[in-house]
């Protein structure tokens, strides 16, 4: 008998093999030093895995309960904020971010006719003005990339951008898209209308350009604004630090470029 495959070793431990096959594999394992070593290695990984914190995005999948509205139709307004200058700052530099309290004002502006109701405009939002609370001077390198965070909604067999002022119903599936701007990590997080912040995932940035988040949100019927954040960083951010930063007013996160968008119901 050849060695047990890696998957077979796992399935033997998990009790997923039929009786005769399990007996055959167990007999091989008992007699094979190499497979015993591999089996021992798997047990080490298992112990290590059990000591790891479970990612919040997996414990409580956000897509099952993100809130956008109780009514059949919601008025959803999309606003993109560039909370930092587009020029890449030193990793340790503090960042300029819009205060959470300012989000509704931007939403209102969008609903009232901000000329951002085209996919092109959604893809390249204007950065928000520096907040009064964070009085650090804002500098921008001419021609520098602008942080991008977009929301797309399923439309039949395809997807399209969510437009400012558009009504979305409960059950709509929304996916975030971001441009990591060459940073190594993208942390995606959200803050609901009660101010509760949830960190969904930290993703190693892949190819350059606009990337889709590896998950989607199905909107449920709870009420209030829902803000989404993308934090671009060179190093992996501590989820607890991210929660603290996104709960503060104004938002501050050292070593990260923060961009956000808000979906709001009427």
């Amino acid at each position, binding site marked *: 008998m050849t060695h047990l*495959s890696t998957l077979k070793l796992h399935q033997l431990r998990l009790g997923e093999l039929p009786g005769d096959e399990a007996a055959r594999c167990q007999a091989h394992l008992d007699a094979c030093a190499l497979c015993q070593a591999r089996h021992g290695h798997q047990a080490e*990984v298992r112990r290590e895995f059990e000591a790891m914190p*479970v990612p919040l995005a997996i414990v409580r999948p956000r897509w099952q309960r993100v809130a956008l509205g109780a009514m059949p139709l919601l008025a959803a307004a999309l606003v993109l904020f560039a909370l930092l200058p587009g020029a890449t700052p030193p990793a340790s530099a503090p960042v300029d971010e819009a205060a959470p309290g300012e989000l509704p004002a931007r939403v209102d502006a969008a609903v009232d006719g901000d000329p951002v109701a085209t996919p092109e405009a959604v893809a390249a939002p204007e950065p928000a003005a520096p907040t009064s609370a964070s009085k650090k001077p804002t500098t921008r390198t001419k021609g520098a990339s602008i942080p991008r965070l977009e929301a797309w909604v399923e439309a039949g067999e395809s997807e399209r951008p969510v437009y400012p002022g558009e009504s979305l119903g409960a059950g709509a599936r929304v996916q975030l898209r971001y441009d990591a701007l060459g940073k190594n990590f993208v942390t995606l997080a959200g803050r609901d209308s009660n101010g509760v912040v949830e960190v969904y995932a930290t993703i190693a940035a892949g190819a350059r350009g606009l990337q889709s988040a590896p998950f989607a949100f199905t909107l449920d019927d709870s009420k209030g604004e829902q803000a989404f954040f993308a934090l671009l960083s060179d190093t992996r951010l501590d989820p607890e630090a991210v929660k603290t930063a996104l709960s503060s007013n104004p938002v501050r996160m050292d070593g990260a470029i923060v961009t956000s968008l808000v979906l709001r119901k009427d």
Partner: protein
Amino acid sequence: MHGDLDIPALYRRYGDLVLGRCRTILRNDADAADAMQDVFLKLHRFRDSFRGDASPSTFLYRITTTTCLNRLRSRRRRPEDPVEELPPLPSSESVLDALAVRQLLDELVDGADEKTVECLVYHFVDGMTHDEAGEMVGLSGAAVRKRIATFRASLRDNPPPWMEDA
């Protein structure tokens, strides 16, 4: 489970399987942790692909393999962002030693198509038979054997000794 995957439960039961798989292929702790999370987040998106005709462990193993190989390709396309690899492990869940795994993934498979790469990984790294590898990639065992033989013949230098039993 079709359409109603209990992802937290799957994570608790199979997380170590996915993590070990990611480490074997990616050989970098941080990248492996990210890939593991990606795999479970993708489960929701691909839930309709799970028809119950394979065990969850097999289904997850396929997704993990594809995810990690795609990451490897992406890593190679971005040589300006080098990833620090783990030192060779003193032990591994692979039937190959760590250096052979690295040789296969980093040196030998360039130019091979994606399905052939998967066949090579399932057979040589995981120790699957041709039939078992075929079930993973949707080919017959004979087709897997032929792909591996063709790949081995394409190597200009002498194939490594561990490839002799293909």
